[in-house]
């Protein structure tokens, strides 16, 4: 019997390791970010650290400040939520989930006025950045990251 388990255990382990991982609840971070060039930039928020290089390279700003944010844990993939600042609102409506991504409908409001709407498949490994309107000398960015 010991001999049988000696080779059955590695085989079962191999099968389990080859099976795709079971999905658990995941959290989506949504942020309204003002990007600016300032003399003494503040440290980048922790949520953006992962994409700091890309943000600086493609938008050309040295400071990124979060003016509104929301963290939503998705359980069914059908939830919706709102990230707001004083004047802007980002409404996120999750419309389904696959193994690798969530299907989202995004609406950017300025007060009650719809500025931009987009549908996207947000990958669990790939953040989404949306360039919004110019605000003063800076730029409004919308960022969504699956944490």
């Amino acid at each position, binding site marked *: 019997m010991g*001999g*049988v388990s000696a*080779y*059955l255990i590695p*085989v079962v382990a*191999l*099968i389990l390791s*080859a099976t795709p991982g079971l999905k658990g609840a995941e959290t989506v971070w949504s942020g309204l970010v*003002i990007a600016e060039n300032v003399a003494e930039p503040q440290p980048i928020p922790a949520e953006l650290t*992962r*994409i700091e*290089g*890309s943000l600086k*390279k*493609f938008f050309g700003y040295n400071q990124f400040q979060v*003016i*509104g944010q929301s963290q939503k844990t998705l359980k069914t993939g059908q939830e919706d939520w709102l990230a707001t*600042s*004083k*004047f*802007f609102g980002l409404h996120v409506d999750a419309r389904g989930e696959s193994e*690798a*991504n969530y*299907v989202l409908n995004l609406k950017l409001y*300025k007060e009650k*006025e*719809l*500025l*931009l*709407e*987009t*549908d*996207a*498949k*947000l*990958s*669990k*490994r*790939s*953040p*989404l*950045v*949306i*360039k*919004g*309107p*110019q*605000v*003063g*000398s*800076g730029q*409004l960015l919308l960022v969504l990251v699956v944490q």
Partner: protein
Amino acid sequence: MKTFEEKWTTWVDGQLSGRELAEFEASLPDKAAAEAEKAEARKLGKLLKNELGVRALTNEEFFSHQLREKIAQEQASRRFRGRRTETSTWWTIPRLLWTGTVSIAVFVICTVLVMHEKNPSEESQYLTQILNARVDPVVSPNATVSMFEVKQDRVTVLWTEGLQSLPADYAAK
């Protein structure tokens, strides 16, 4: 009453005696020729006995003969048992388990290889994709949208141009 041939055989074997011997030898027409024939017959008998007789085995030979027979029997029975073992062991439970295990292992390896080969082509599924984007044409009539991916950080960017600019007050938290 013995015939002449019977008496002759008995005489050649040297088993006649007494009166019977005297009477038989007296009845021989040529005793010298008969004696010569008797001597030849005895000589031939002795030769045949030496050449055709069963040779008795010595103790040593008998013992080694017995040993050889026993060894031959054992080898034959071992060969028979070996054949039985060869044919019966293949479908024993351990063999079946091994066969099953090897089959599962081959299946898992093939599955992993197929999944591994599929991954590069499915890489795009791990990047965020923008399906469509719309800008209110009344609020921003000249706005355009484009999209691109930054492979380095796996970031997908929706790039808008021509959206209505807003005063700095709108940056308030």
